[in-house]
């Protein structure tokens, strides 16, 4: 991935705003661990080094941020690819992926059963009810691939949408046979309820599958190419910092999630992408097409920018 602009962050900062079209950005983020890179970049002054001032806007779901982006309230947003590709496919949004965000790490997602549940293996999930946050989203997409790989018929799973705070009560009351959890709930369910892990939806064919990224509109990107590049660099640099340093992540989590320091120390983080890779992202689009969630093919590479960070 060769960059056209190889100037070091210091140089661009030194050159005033380095010819950036826009220096103050508002970015919508989600109150979830996946958004951490944005907050690390702010916390570690990585945006500042690029001459950017980024203000985060914590929203409750990514679809909600799209109208904000379209009417100019925000410049970019953090959102999951499945939603974004659907929006793009339906013409609600001319998508531009500014930077990759998070990928599923082993054990950061988990299909779990309560200790006394008869479900012991992936095969036992057939005919069972499992929750997802939102129907027809990345959770289903990934699990479908993993189930197929485990010789389970994905069509035999019943998905119900259950909002975050209601998963535990619904599960305990027996209205869910197995729970599809993400962090930090995986850790919490294991330690407090003795829940057993049945299957890792981010394994096998879906290992490391990309969940969310930083999204802008094509129009915005066309007007602000240099800003976009600077924004991407800062995020990639943040991801690099986070790779071997849990501490920087744990520090920022309480700022935008409901995860306190103690929990932050124990949860499994997703992978944060320090470079953009069209190949693995294309997989998501292809799976979606396979599931008929898209009406036509999406050439993901054409929506991405070259990685300019070192």
């Amino acid at each position, binding site marked *: 991935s060769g960059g056209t602009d190889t100037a070091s962050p210091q140089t661009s900062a030194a050159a005033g705003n380095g010819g950036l079209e826009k220096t103050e950005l508002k970015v919508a983020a989600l*109150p979830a661990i996946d958004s951490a890179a944005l907050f690390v970049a702010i916390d570690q002054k990585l945006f500042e080094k690029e001459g950017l001032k980024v203000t985060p*806007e*914590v*929203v*409750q779901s990514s*679809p*909600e941020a*799209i*109208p*904000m982006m*379209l*009417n100019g*309230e925000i410049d970019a947003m953090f959102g999951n690819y499945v939603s974004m590709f659907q929006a793009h496919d339906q013409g609600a949004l001319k998508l531009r992926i500014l930077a990759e965000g998070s990928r599923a790490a082993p054990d950061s997602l988990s299909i779990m059963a309560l200790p006394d549940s008869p479900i012991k293996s992936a095969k036992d999930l057939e005919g069972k009810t499992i929750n997802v946050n939102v129907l027809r989203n990345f959770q289903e997409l990934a699990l479908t691939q993993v189930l197929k790989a485990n010789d389970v018929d994905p069509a035999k799973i019943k998905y119900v949408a259950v*909002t*975050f*705070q209601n998963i*535990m*009560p619904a599960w*305990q009351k027996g209205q869910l046979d197995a729970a599809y959890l993400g962090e*930090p*709930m995986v850790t*919490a369910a294991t330690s*407090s309820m003795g829940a057993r892990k049945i299957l890792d939806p981010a394994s096998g064919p879906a290992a490391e599958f990309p969940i969310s990224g930083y999204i802008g509109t094509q129009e915005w990107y066309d007007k602000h190419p240099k800003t976009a590049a600077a924004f991407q660099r800062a995020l990639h640099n943040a991801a690099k910092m986070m790779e071997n340093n849990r501490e920087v992540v744990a520090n920022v989590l309480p700022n935008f*999630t*409901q*995860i306190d320091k103690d*929990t932050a120390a124990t949860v499994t983080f997703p992978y944060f992408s320090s470079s953009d890779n069209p190949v693995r992202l294309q997989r998501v689009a292809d799976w979606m097409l396979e599931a008929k969630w898209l009406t036509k093919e999406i050439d993901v590479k054409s929506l991405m920018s070259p990685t300019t960070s070192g």
Partner: protein
Amino acid sequence: MLAFAALFEALGRAGLVDIGFLPPTSVILWRAGELLVDPAFRAHAATSMLAWAIGLGAAALIAVPLGLLLGSVRLIDAATRAIVEFLRPIPSVALIPLVALVIGTGLQLRVTLVIYASLWPILYNTMYGLRGVDPVAKESLRSYGFRAPAVLWWVSLPSAAPFIMTGFRLATGVALILTVSTEIVAGRGEGIGVFIYFAGIAVPARMDDIMAGVVWVGLFGVVVNALLVAAERRLFAWQHARLGAHAGAPVAVGAGR
């Protein structure tokens, strides 16, 4: 009220419902007390109240004149009924993205949705209130040469006012629900709904926070209602006195409190 609280407490303590998911009253009230002195929560509350007040006020300003118009001019009612009845059942959740796109997501989003939802009770009570006006009273004024608008102002409106007020009291609750619900579904920044939302996504969910927030919303509703009932008693003293005039009829009590 106390019995209700006690019942709730007992349910929790008796283990009928899981304490983790539904904390007992004492815990909720304690938490509610703590929140009262928490400046962050007070800021949330202030933001919600602002949206509530603006939305409700605007709704009343729109709905009463509109109700008078639709309630008194049959032609306009007939011409607009299809549209009005078409708009009414559209849920505000479905409108959130559309309104957000057109007018943005800040205070204006909440206010718009509050107006949209709390308009109807005032509008309909105004329209139905007008129908209950004694025709002899209207004719009395008409016979002195007063034309329709004057009759509306001097007879229909005062006569329907108590029922319109009931509509307004209904609207205060609707507006409160809409404010907080919108915040829960799509709120950013501040607001009791935002507070409740974030309490909900904590692991494990902070049910005590949620319920304490709910308690404050509910209490706010109780206070507003009480103030309005007091206002009603002053404004419509004539009605209370008249209805209470023959009190002693065992059935006729409960009036005017």
